[in-house]
């Protein structure tokens, strides 16, 4: 099976270790790599409350970290000759993933394999690679 368009899903819980693996998977498969960092407003509000910070401060930090992850990924992808498209969006993770699958004709999802990702594995309409 050939995957032409891969969507890598990133959140504030994702660490950098997933970046190299996802680039290598796409390099080996000759796939285009769409990277999506999703900011979840409910989670930002919870984090702000837990850490006694203002919501807009937590949001700004999360957004900046998101862009950093995306550009780190892109830098590695360019080094490896992998085509990339970077996206940062806000909302419910499952809803945003569905939107991108439809909008960009995604064949396969890549996510960091954690317990929290079970909902993605269960609800996805396309194959999911857990890295």
């Amino acid at each position, binding site marked *: 099976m050939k995957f032409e368009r891969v969507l890598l899903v990133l959140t504030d819980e994702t660490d950098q270790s997933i970046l190299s693996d996802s680039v290598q998977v796409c390099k080996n498969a000759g796939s285009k790599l769409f990277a999506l960092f999703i900011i979840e407003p409910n989670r930002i509000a919870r984090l702000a409350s837990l850490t006694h910070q203002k919501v807009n401060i937590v949001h*700004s930090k999360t957004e900046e970290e998101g862009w950093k992850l995306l550009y780190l990924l892109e*830098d590695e992808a360019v080094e490896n000759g992998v085509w990339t498209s*970077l996206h940062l969006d806000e909302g419910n993770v499952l809803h945003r993933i569905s939107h991108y699958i439809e909008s960009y004709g995604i064949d396969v999802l890549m996510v960091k394999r954690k317990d929290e990702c079970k909902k993605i594995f269960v609800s996805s309409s396309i194959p999911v690679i857990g890295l």
Partner: protein
Amino acid sequence: MQLKISDYLKPEAIIMEIKAKEKLAAINELVAHMVENKLVSNGDEFIKALAKRENLESTGIGDGIAIPHARTNAVKDLILAFARSPKGIDFSSVDGKPSHIIFLIASPEGKKSEYILALAKLSRLLRKHAVRELLRNAKEPEEIMDIIKKNEE
């Protein structure tokens, strides 16, 4: 790491109205402007590095913004340039819309952390609708610099 975008943007790296109508021509025009103002030593190498990226990704991040960028030893330090296109240029943007505001970022090969941070800070700043509107309506290069300075945190 503390980094302020405004520290790296100089008035002589700003084109208030770019003539080019397509992305590679726009990159060429911006780089030529930077070479003319002695901000870049090797324009050809710089353009080659930027073109390599453009072939492998879309640097149009949506909302009328494009951020062509590259790590290349054609520059000695992190550097930014700005151009505005009233009609817009097709940067194969993620939302399919033409780019009216173009920020170019380059850094030497060895300054990856600084480069990534500058890209992240700039991308976040430009997602703010109010900042985009101010940049689109500014009249002078100094005004562009003021907007960046006042709005970055």
